[in-house]
């Protein structure tokens, strides 16, 4: 690592902390071309840039999965921890004690958070740990090549795995049930909304759950669907060649106005119905939020926007009444009781 720091030249546009957008970038993505996760990483870069975050003041976390690779694709100048499958929450919880002035941004997948990681996910929400918790939700396990995740819709059919029989786990409803203080949903193909919600999430003190629908171009495509990787219906049998992944464009939607709905066709030809929360929606009523989500489930709609927020609750580290100095900058004198205490201590031992 002998690179020297890039110097900000005069022509480069910089933000309020004097950094150019590229100071917020990460390594080039190794995800599939057209993967929804890529566009989310881009929006994280932009949101952090526009929020004037100092990259050194951000901690990045993830579990394991395609989605969980994302932290390498943004904020190269931030510390990152790509942990274990489903266990990002606990690592983040501990790490954020080190210096509570840092911003935590976690990226996880639906398999990572709703399957193996369900327990940790629920508990990090319940504790109101101050971090942005992004779930790049594609309904499948991308990195292990296309098994159902717990957010897959009922009736979805996948090659080698048959038809999904269970109701999908609704990340937002789960978050609210466990008393999350910030819950939003968006769609990777709606970069503007993703960015705005990210900014709100970063600003929120406490846990901010962002459920971002992020289609897997490669595996979440019904093998029996018209547009699966076959070469057309006129052939005797569709050929689903898993080792071949055509490069595709990311799906992007135009602006949906607040309260509006839109049908979006995914790469596999399936349709998701997106509905944007209207301006009349009040995200501070917990059970209105639950009701809205329940209705959306019944109507098979994907409602996007800020679903619930409770700004006042103290965050996890706040409840610990910590000293102002970051804990990881405390010195021996702060940490080791004075020499004279040992005699008192021994006296206390009977």
């Amino acid at each position, binding site marked *: 690592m002998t690179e020297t720091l890039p110097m900000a030249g005069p022509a480069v546009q910089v933000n309020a902390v004097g950094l150019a957008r590229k100071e917020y970038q990460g390594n080039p993505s190794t995800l599939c071309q057209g993967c929804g996760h890529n566009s989310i990483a881009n929006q994280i870069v932009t949101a952090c840039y526009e929020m004037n975050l100092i990259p050194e003041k951000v901690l990045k976390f993830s579990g394991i999965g395609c989605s969980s690779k994302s932290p390498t694709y943004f904020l190269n100048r931030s510390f990152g921890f790509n942990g274990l499958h489903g266990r990002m929450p606990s690592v983040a*919880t*501990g790490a954020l004690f080190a210096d509570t002035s840092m911003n935590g941004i976690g990226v996880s997948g639906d398999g990572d958070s709703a399957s193996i990681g369900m327990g940790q996910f629920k508990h990090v929400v319940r504790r109101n740990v101050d971090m942005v918790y992004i779930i790049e939700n594609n309904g499948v396990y991308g990195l292990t090549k296309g098994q159902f995740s717990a957010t897959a819709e009922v009736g979805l059919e996948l090659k080698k795995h048959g038809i999904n029989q269970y109701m999908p786990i609704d990340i937002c409803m789960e978050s609210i049930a466990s008393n999350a203080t910030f819950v939003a949903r968006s769609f990777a193909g709606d970069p503007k909304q993703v960015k705005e919600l990210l900014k709100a999430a970063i600003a929120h003190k406490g846990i901010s759950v962002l459920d971002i629908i992020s289609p897997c171009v490669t595996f979440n495509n019904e093998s029996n669907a018209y547009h699966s990787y076959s070469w057309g219906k006129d052939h005797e049998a569709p050929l689903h060649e898993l080792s071949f992944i055509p490069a595709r464009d990311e799906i992007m939607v135009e602006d949906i106005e607040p309260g509006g709905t839109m049908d979006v066709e995914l790469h596999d030809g399936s349709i998701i119905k997106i509905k944007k929360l209207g301006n009349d929606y009040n995200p501070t009523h917990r059970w209105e939020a639950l009701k809205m989500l329940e209705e959306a489930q019944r109507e098979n709609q994907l409602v996007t926007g800020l679903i619930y927020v409770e700004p006042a609750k103290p965050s996890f580290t706040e409840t610990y009444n*910590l000293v102002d100095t970051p804990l990881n900058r405390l010195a021996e004198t702060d*940490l080791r009781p004075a020499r004279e205490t040992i005699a008192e201590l021994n006296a206390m031992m009977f």
Partner: protein
Amino acid sequence: MNQKVVNDFSITVGTVNGSGSSTANNTILRAIFKMGIPVSGKNLFPSNIQGQPTWYTIRVSKDGYLGRDESQQIVVAINPASFARDLAGVAPGGAFFYADDIKQPVTRTDIAVYPMPVKQIIREQTEVPSNLRDLVSNMVYVGVLAQMIGIDLEKIHAALDFHFKHREKPTMMNFNAVKAGAEWAKANLTKTDPFALEPMSKTDGMIMADGNTAAALGAIYGGVQFVGWYPITPATSLAESLNDYLPKLRKREDGKHTYAVVQAEDELAALGMSIGAGWGGLRAMTSTSGPGLSLMTEFAGLAYYAEIPVVIWDVQRIGPSTGLPTRTSQGDLTFTAHIGHGDSHSVILLPGDVFECFEFGWKALDLAERLQTPVFVLSDLDMGMNQWMSKPFEYPDTPMDRGKVLSEKDLEELKGNWGRYLDKDGDGITYRTLPGNQHPLSAYFTRGTGHDEYAKYTEEANVFYRVMERLKLKHETAKDYVPAPIVHETRGAEVGILAYGSTESAVEEARDQLAADGLKSSVMRVRALPFSKTVEKFIQKYEQVIVVEMNRDGQMHQLLCMDFPTLAPKLKSVAFQDGMPASAKWIREGVLKFAKPAKKKVAPTKKITVKKSKTPAKKGAKK
């Protein structure tokens, strides 16, 4: 009456759990301790909360043997459910005290028998409110016993005063019950047993503590900052002691905290949080027992490979599986040594007593940061939850070792030219930066996947190989840092004994017995893995080295054979486990399986022995 037996016997009290008898038993223990007589206490309690039989054994030993003695000279029976068994357990020539409301036949004639009208005496204590009668009634047997074997009432008062945190009311209420018991005994009982206490000065300057408290205190002196934990017997009291003592010992004027103790939702999260904190630059630890340790396996592997400092206390209980949650064991050693899939090897500390629980409490944190690796500390239920007399805790004799950390200034000097996993010093230990470091080149990316010297992702075969070889080198380096074994060499020793952990006192006792049998031995108490050169030398020196431990499979023996294949034929295993703390008896018998004393005449250790658990040597010995 036989000849007087002074300061050399065991007392067992059989009661019901949840009845509050532990205060009474601790009082006896502490009073004897305050009389200057070496004493140890062991609580044999069931894995439930109320209503089941429980036993407390106090060993009084003028010679300072603190290990379990298999025979019970004095038995106090308060629990009808275990009465018959308790009675049968009294050593011939022993003494049997019992609550006289238990209407069961006392058939033995070879022992002294003392009925005690516990209920009646407590009813006469009018100051005791009726809802506390059952609780305080335990003090009656304390009083009777005090009178009959000579426990100094003043010392009992001191013990109660300590227990009740110097609050007079409860102290006196309980002490009055003790006195009532003593007075009744004085008036009504005639001593027909030989057991007596006489003051000594052998405990002067000593303290009494349990290992879990000691470990917590040690960690506090080690500057612990983050603890993620999940309740599990017998480790719970370690974390609870941190909750107890941190606010006292790390009190600040501004009332703010320099630490956080988080009860996690399970052990995976407990270690995960601690790893996060350790990565963040905090002195981080967790404490657990077997089942929790099993659940920590995946995270332990991550910490090993990503080189994250964290301390893991495993207060061992009997496995496999849920096993006997309230019984002691040394059964997690082999598992811990190779915890996690893939090639790994753990740094393990093996405290031998309460004093070392304190010492390793802070040292483990130093080592974890120095070596940038999870450091396991294997204690056990016997050491962790029972009260032991001990040398006073000693203030750390070295400053905190925070290991190789680069600050902003360091990075500036290096011009940002560093690699997280670059072995600059040739010792396998690399430099790290801490989150919050504001130098723009300080950040690195931590992962459990393949990475190169600059923490960059890689799948390159040779890079992966290189990193793994460096981890091996680091493990070599660890040998220079971990606590050295403690060796007691005997001139002309015919055999070497190698042991570790809480068996220490039983081993010492067994060695004295063996010496009396005519078998001279040297002993090495191993205090850490990886094994240092000294361990190898010790094994080399003796024709046979007998490895003594408290598990079924001889796990220390297994690990020594692995590490010293050429010496393996010399290593003999004496391993036994049934949940009871080690006794000199089975150790001695186990050793004698392999090594015969020169003079061939093996005298039995003690005349009075009562069989309760199986003799170990027969079954537990393995070549």
